[in-house]
């Protein structure tokens, strides 16, 4: 993305304008907010506390007490879906934050200092990139064992490449910008220039990458769950879909349907938000 001579203020205005102009984008933001609130409520223990409790017979159809029926262990599916939302948010947030931080740090150092630092970091990410993403993901989580921490690490070690590459490119460009040259003329140290002057100007790119990775993490968790490597001990949409695969044949589609729809809405909202964000940040694209 090429955003010539725009201040961060301009970007913020453009983003707000873009979102205001699109009802779909506003709707997507609302969905994200609702999900986020639900996730916080789960964390505070206000809702879905009974996700692990036996509330009835196994495989009950939707009824007055269990709106989406029960699973094999007689647990309330709706509670589990809501609870899994928390997991999705944690997985998404942790993965996206760490990946973007790591990617930005390495990308910034690489672009700014050049030389062997750059050579090393470029080598590192082109190496990681040339291993198929799913293979790397599975290999890492296989070695770390199933479970949440393995999932995080596998995701971060796989996903940092994207932001790193982009931030590096942007830093390379900004390095020559007038305000950077001015800062140099003021005699500021390289670290101050890099992290006070250059990196803040790449925040919009970090934001877009953040949303992209958030979605990628939620979707990849399903695949890992299918392979038995996903979240353990707590319900996640991935484990629910994986569990419910077999139930489709039995004629119980509440679990797979519910988890799919729940996940679909959040991912859709994030996709739309990301799109809107990208449009606002890169006005050349009128998507």
């Amino acid at each position: 993305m090429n955003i010539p001579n725009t201040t961060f203020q301009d970007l913020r205005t453009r983003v707000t304008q873009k979102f205001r102009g699109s009802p779909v984008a506003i709707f997507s933001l609302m969905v994200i907010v609702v999900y986020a609130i639900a996730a916080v409520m789960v964390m505070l223990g206000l809702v879905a506390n009974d996700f692990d409790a036996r509330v009835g017979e196994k495989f009950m159809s939707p009824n007055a007490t269990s709106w989406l029926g029960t699973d094999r262990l007689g647990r309330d599916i709706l509670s589990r879906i809501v609870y899994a939302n928390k997991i999705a948010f944690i997985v998404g947030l942790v993965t996206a934050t760490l990946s973007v931080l790591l990617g930005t740090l390495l990308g910034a150092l690489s672009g700014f200092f050049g030389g062997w630092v750059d050579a090393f970091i470029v080598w590192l990410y082109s190496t990681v990139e040339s291993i198929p993403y799913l293979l790397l993901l599975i290999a890492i989580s296989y070695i770390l064992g199933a479970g949440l921490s393995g999932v995080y690490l596998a995701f971060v070690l796989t996903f940092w490449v994207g932001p790193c590459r982009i931030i590096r490119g942007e830093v390379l460009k900004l390095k020559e910008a007038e305000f950077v040259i001015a800062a140099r003329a003021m005699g500021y140290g390289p670290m101050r220039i890099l992290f006070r002057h250059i990196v803040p100007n790449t925040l919009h790119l970090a934001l877009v990458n953040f949303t992209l990775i958030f979605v990628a993490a939620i979707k990849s968790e399903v695949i890992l769950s299918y392979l038995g490597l996903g979240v353990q001990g707590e319900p996640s949409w991935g484990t629910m879909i994986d569990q419910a695969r077999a139930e489709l044949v039995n004629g119980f589609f509440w679990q797979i349907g519910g988890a799919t729809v729940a996940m679909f809405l959040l991912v859709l909202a994030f996709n739309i938000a990301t799109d809107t964000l990208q449009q606002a940040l890169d006005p050349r694209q009128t998507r």
Partner: protein
Amino acid sequence: MSTLSEVAPAPILSIRDLSIELRNGGSKQLATKGVGLDLCQGEVLGLVGESGCGKTLTCKAIMGLLPEGVGRVQTGEILFSGHDLTRANEPTMRTFRGNTLSMIFQNPLNALNPVLTIGEQLSEVLATHTTLKRSEIYQEALHMLRRVGMPDAARRMRAYPHELSGGMRQRVVIAMALLMEPDVILADEPTTALDVTVQAQILKLLKSFQRNHNSAILLVTHDFGVIADMCDRVAVMYAGRIIETGTVEAIFDHPSHPYTAKLLEAMPRGRPVPRGELSVIPGRVPSNPDDLSGCKFAPRCERVQKACHRTEPRLKRVREGSTRIDPHLVSCFIAFEDRDEVTHVIE
């Protein structure tokens, strides 16, 4: 219609009360308001003004190429060859474009498709508008390339745009525009991207073509030097409005709008001004002129009066520089403050 128009030659392109609306996200604004221009056969009309005043948009509106979903003709008409171009459908527009009505764009590098050869980009104009055979098309295109002064033209036919220098690219762009010997050429700052010596050559080329074919040129520029060399008449635009129009002599000798005067002051005659230097007048062009009541130039005007802020002045005829066929019009209260003579009003 006044009696004057009966004497003047019939315009080949006539713009009446053209208002172009721009949409940006949810907000709308008028980029031009009530623009009126007449272009006669064999005439070069200069359109001058700061960047963003609506010159290029006006040209695009004539071509029917306003950015889709963003720009729209709100009111007015553009008469050409018996059609109102603001209402003409795409197929009709296509028969005009590149044929009897052509346009030369500012930046010659961007105006050429980087992955097609010069030859193909020239030939496709002929392939679209004529029924010539391939070999004839090739000959025609090559001939035109030679006419615009392209050295080694036969070889250049197979070249890609990036293999040519800026001046040569602009020659290609001009060759494309001239291929069909159009009646009207819209030249949108055809030389601003080029260096001084090349500028002169390109302008000479345009001028000689115009003379030979008796074409009409609407020359968009902000360089009064170019105007002086090329044009018969001038229209000055500010904030989407024509604020002064008249013959080159009238404008240069009797600039009646403070804005025009400032522009001329800023540029000693005869010396070309590099792009961007026009904005020596303090202040900025209003971002949304319609938010401003009264004269749009008032905030920057040194001679501003109370009345200027109340109502927007309309174009009126001034005596100095007006001829029988080419009236000198200006929209400014102070231009008339000494005399309350109102001769003619053009909306």
